[in-house]
């Protein structure tokens, strides 16, 4: 290998730094500014205080939105994981036109512009007369399911089929094979799928914009409407909480999963949108 040119190396290094700055600087600014004690946005902050976090949890609408988002994310991620896992188990070892079609169908919500999905669901719910919370839950579930589907699919495909066959030849029925053999082997895929669904649901805005009703607003919607009408420090604290929930918590769980096993499911989850696009 030739040693690379120093100019090229310098260019590459500066491009990398620039890209990282572009991605990380906004997040850093939000997280740092959230600890500012001042009334209005000031960067760098003159001091550190938890004032706005206290304010965040004292305000009813913010706290309710946070709790609703959390509930919604937990429930919809669980629902999406169950559905996505079942779909992935069914499709993992099947080939053919119908299987390909079904796979595209499972991944379709990623390619479909979410704002159109929100509008479509809104029109549907109005005709059916759906109450707000189940409607939101369904929408979040639809958006999160492709992630679960992909991660579980990747781990099932990495699984040796002879293990399941061994379980069945030893007398286990399909259900006990699933619970005793398959699920213990693919739990990392299931868990990371759940995490991705959780992240997506917690940060989901485009569909919730149409579907959230009076008194039932998710945290991103609450932040968004605050930002549109008044941009106070409170919003920054709320955004920081969102970032903390979205970034730190799942990240640490992913780390823990990776340490105890393979990285296939996590990589599959991250690459889910890309695979959805590249094999439609």
């Amino acid at each position, binding site marked *: *290998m*030739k040693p*690379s*040119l120093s100019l*090229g190396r310098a260019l590459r290094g500066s491009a990398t730094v620039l*890209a990282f700055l*572009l*991605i990380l600087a*906004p997040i850093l600014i939000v997280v740092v500014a959230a600890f500012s004690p001042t009334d209005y946005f*000031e960067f760098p902050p003159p001091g550190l205080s938890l004032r706005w976090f206290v304010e965040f949890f004292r305000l009813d609408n913010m706290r309710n939105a946070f709790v609703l988002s959390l509930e919604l994310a937990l429930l919809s991620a669980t629902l999406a994981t169950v559905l996505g896992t079942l779909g992935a188990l069914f499709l993992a070892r099947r080939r053919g036109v119908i299987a390909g079609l079904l796979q595209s169908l499972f991944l379709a919500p990623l*390619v*479909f*512009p*979410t*704002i*159109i999905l929100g*509008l*479509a669901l*809104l*029109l549907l719910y*109005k005709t059916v007369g759906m109450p707000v919370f189940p409607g939101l839950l369904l929408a979040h579930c639809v958006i999160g399911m492709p992630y679960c589907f992909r991660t579980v699919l990747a781990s099932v495909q990495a699984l040796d089929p002879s293990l399941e066959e061994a379980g069945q030849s030893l007398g286990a029925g399909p259900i006990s094979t699933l619970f005793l053999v398959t699920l213990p082997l693919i739990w990392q895929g299931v868990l990371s799928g759940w995490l991705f669904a959780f992240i997506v649901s917690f940060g989901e*805005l*485009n569909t919730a*914009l*149409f579907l959230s009703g009076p008194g039932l607003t998710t945290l*991103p919607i609450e932040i*968004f409407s605050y*930002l*549109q009408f008044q941009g106070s420090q409170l919003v920054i604290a709320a955004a920081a909480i969102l970032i903390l929930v979205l970034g730190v918590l799942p990240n640490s769980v992913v780390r823990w999963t990776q340490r105890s096993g393979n990285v296939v499911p996590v990589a599959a989850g*991250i*690459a889910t*949108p*890309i695979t959805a*696009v*590249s*094999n*439609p």
Partner: protein
Amino acid sequence: VLHIQLAHYFAVDTFVACFAAAALFFGQRAWQRESLVDALIAGVMAGLATASKVSALMLLPVLGLAFIWPRRGRPSMSQFFDGMTAVGVALVGAFFAFRVAEPYAFLGPAVWSLRPNPQWFADKNYWTQVSSGAIDVPLDLLYSTEAVVVGLMTILLPYMVISIANTLSGLDPRYEEAAQSLGAGPIRTFVHVTLPLSTPGVASGMLLVFLLTLSAYVTITLLGGPRSKLLVSMIYDNVVSFQWPRAAALAFILLAIALALTGIIMAALRPARVQGTGR
């Protein structure tokens, strides 16, 4: 404040530098050739520079001093008067250029009206304080198409990176090694081997970013402000004002655009055929 200074740098200093350089160039020519036309142009340039940035005002005394500076031989009275004429011409040119470029600085509709506008000085003072960091203002970068583009780029960059990285990690390193062993430098290897092979990743990344941009309502609304209306914001506005059939029609148009462009990108880049596999 740094952003303001940067924006200021890009928006203002380029013009100031251009005009100031032109002014100095023509000033120097006027000094050499003793030509009043050049003096006039130099004055106009200096006036434009001052209109771009007030601190360019100090160009005028420099030019004036240059004009009356003795050219060759002993300084004489006639040379001094010639220089003074040049200075006068330059000043008149500078004044009219400034008057045309910054009409707000003067009161009255007439071009020759000399009464200065006090509000203009107040504004200048305010912006000076802003750019020095004494006062903080909302960023001017906000509420523009550029802001939307930069914001979306920041948000969507990871998707593109992951997409390309996905393809590159599946790339057989022997291709690159073969190219290098055949004598290609790093740049040639990249252009002729790595880049064509990474087309599938670039294509799917482009498609993904494109689709995500189409439905990026929030970023557009927050960064673009109320003035930039895109298809998604129109859909949302129609939904909020209960014109649902219209919103549905707009959504259908958006979907049609998305599908059509997806088809075009897929057909144009043919990600599945480049490497022979669909991955």
